[in-house]
């Protein structure tokens, strides 16, 4: 018998046999209607920066006022004149010197300000981690209240890699002092569009 079959046989012999039905998940109602307010408040609390913008021109104006000196990449066609496109088939190591990456988010979650992004949003998996600074453009109406609603949205979504990102990279490993910018992005700006 293979190791696999041995383990499975042992598990099968030892696992309890009483009826153990899966619980109902519909008992977690939506507690807030002010999803945008909550999203922005939580994001600020965890070190992110929410910025409300009317259109892409406002994003551009914001970036001119708050410039990032260095390499800027973006997957968003409307921002292509101020950022280079993300090279799709390049070696991910070539992104080492990216100062700012601007990508789109699929939706955000109000209770924890996490934003769902998949590699379809930005071509290269390493992008939101390797950049020094991260900006995510999120339609202001693409918000759900909690994680149950989030997974309802993801129920049938196909992805090879997807990630909830909530704020900048952080650590408190040294005496519980919060430091932003551990290994991933040092800052996270969220442009809430519309």
């Amino acid at each position, binding site marked *: 018998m293979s190791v696999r079959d041995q*383990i499975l046989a042992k*598990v099968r012999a030892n*696992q309890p046999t009483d009826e153990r039905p899966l619980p109902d*998940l519909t008992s977690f109602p939506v507690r807030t209607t002010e999803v945008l307010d909550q999203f922005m408040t939580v994001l600020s609390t965890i070190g992110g920066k929410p910025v409300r913008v009317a259109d892409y021109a406002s994003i551009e104006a914001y970036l001119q006022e708050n410039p990032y000196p260095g390499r800027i990449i973006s997957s968003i066609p409307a921002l292509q004149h101020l950022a280079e496109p993300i090279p799709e088939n390049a070696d991910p190591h070539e992104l080492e010197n990216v100062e700012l990456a601007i990508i789109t988010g699929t939706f955000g*979650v109000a209770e924890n300000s996490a934003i769902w992004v998949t590699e379809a949003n930005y071509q290269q998996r390493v992008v939101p*981690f390797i950049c020094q600074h991260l900006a995510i453009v999120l339609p202001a109406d693409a918000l759900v209240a909690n994680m149950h609603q989030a997974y309802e949205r993801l*129920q049938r979504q196909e992805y*090879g890699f997807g990630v909830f990102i909530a704020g900048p990279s952080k650590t408190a*490993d040294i005496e519980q002092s919060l430091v932003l910018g*551990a290994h991933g992005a040092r800052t996270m700006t969220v442009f809430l569009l519309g």
Partner: protein
Amino acid sequence: MSTKPKHPELSERFNADEPRVDWHDATLWWIRQKRDIAAHTLYEDWESLRDTASAIKDNVLGNLADYLESFERQATANGAIVHWAADAAEHNQIVLSLLQQAGTKRMVKSKSMLTEECHLNEYLAKNGIEVVDTDLGERIVQLADEPPSHIVMPCIHWKKEEIGELFHQHLGTPKGNADPQLLTEAARQHLRDKFLSRRVALTGVNFAVAETGEFVVCTNEGNADMGVHLADVHIACMGIEKIIPRREHLGVFLRLLARSATGQPITTYSSHFKSPRKGAQLHIVLVDNGRSQQLGREAFRNSLKCIRCGACMNTCPVYRRSGGHSYHNAVAGPIGAILAPNLDMTKNADLPFASTLCGSCSNVCPVKINIHEQLYEWRQELTRQGKVDFGKKMGLKMMSSVLSSPMVYRSMGKMGRWAMRVIPGMVSNSFNPWFKQREMPAAPKESFRDWYLKNRS
């Protein structure tokens, strides 16, 4: 009996520095308080979330074999390669062979308590492999040649001045500088170079979904993702109990995990790995190492529900005042004390006794494991198995005979009170473990019973 030092002796060493114990205690309690605040923000849902999470895990334990098969099938269809390891040795060999296949002697690793349990780093070092732990706390203890003392905060027992000195020696930071910002920046630069140059990255797994074959890794630092997305080979190691049935169940667990662990609403990154990056390999190692055995122990199987948040440690009065290393096990604290005897009853017989049975651990556990009841059960089981040392056994026998006879209890009480007043040296001496690090209370003149008999009218 093993001659390695046990929990009482190791705690005594930790307790030698009293201000440090107070500091450690207060730090952990602060994290417990942050957890309370976070739980309270969801007060309408919190208890039902815990019930739901526990019920999902109940279902998992009853159907684990089917879920494992489903996970393997889906993961394979997604392009991952699934390996099975019966024990730590097999797990370590699989990882080594994957490194050899990749033709490299260097690897980056993000946090995985399973690899600590299997002593992977030591094994790989013996085989000429250099492993760099990339979680900041883990890197700190690795540079200091120590195991983590906490499953979520590996270097919670270190002071920043000591980390400053360690980094001065290893990373060349300015001597005497203990600024967390500066030290974290130094680690960021040091580890960025490792991320960019290593071709194999190993991660742990927080949750693996039977329905889809994907798994989720949660970090705040982004170190798992930095390692994996820059490597040619991703090795993900997981205990077989990490399975959950469906993707939608992640909603329940991700709401509970970070709030219970650190008081955050969610970790910065909750990464869902389903298929390998184009041109890269994804290996998943499923490890039993005693879990199927624990599944068969009815009194202890619920310990397999654990999602490794560490809340039971942060709240435990014994953990907070004895430190993670006193548990001499990869997973410390109350949950470690019910997992460890399953792995080795002789070596870990002391751990279920390292508890006051106050029940605080069970009260904060996000998956409602009856931790303190299992600690109590283990004490009985270990005594039945003859794993408890003679002194403790005799002491408990004596206590049982005193407590089961009211007359003996009363006369012993009287003698005790008299002795504590007249010859305090009889109890306030180094032979009495209760005297260590404590002042003995002043003995009352009479027992409550005597007082009550006099005053009841």
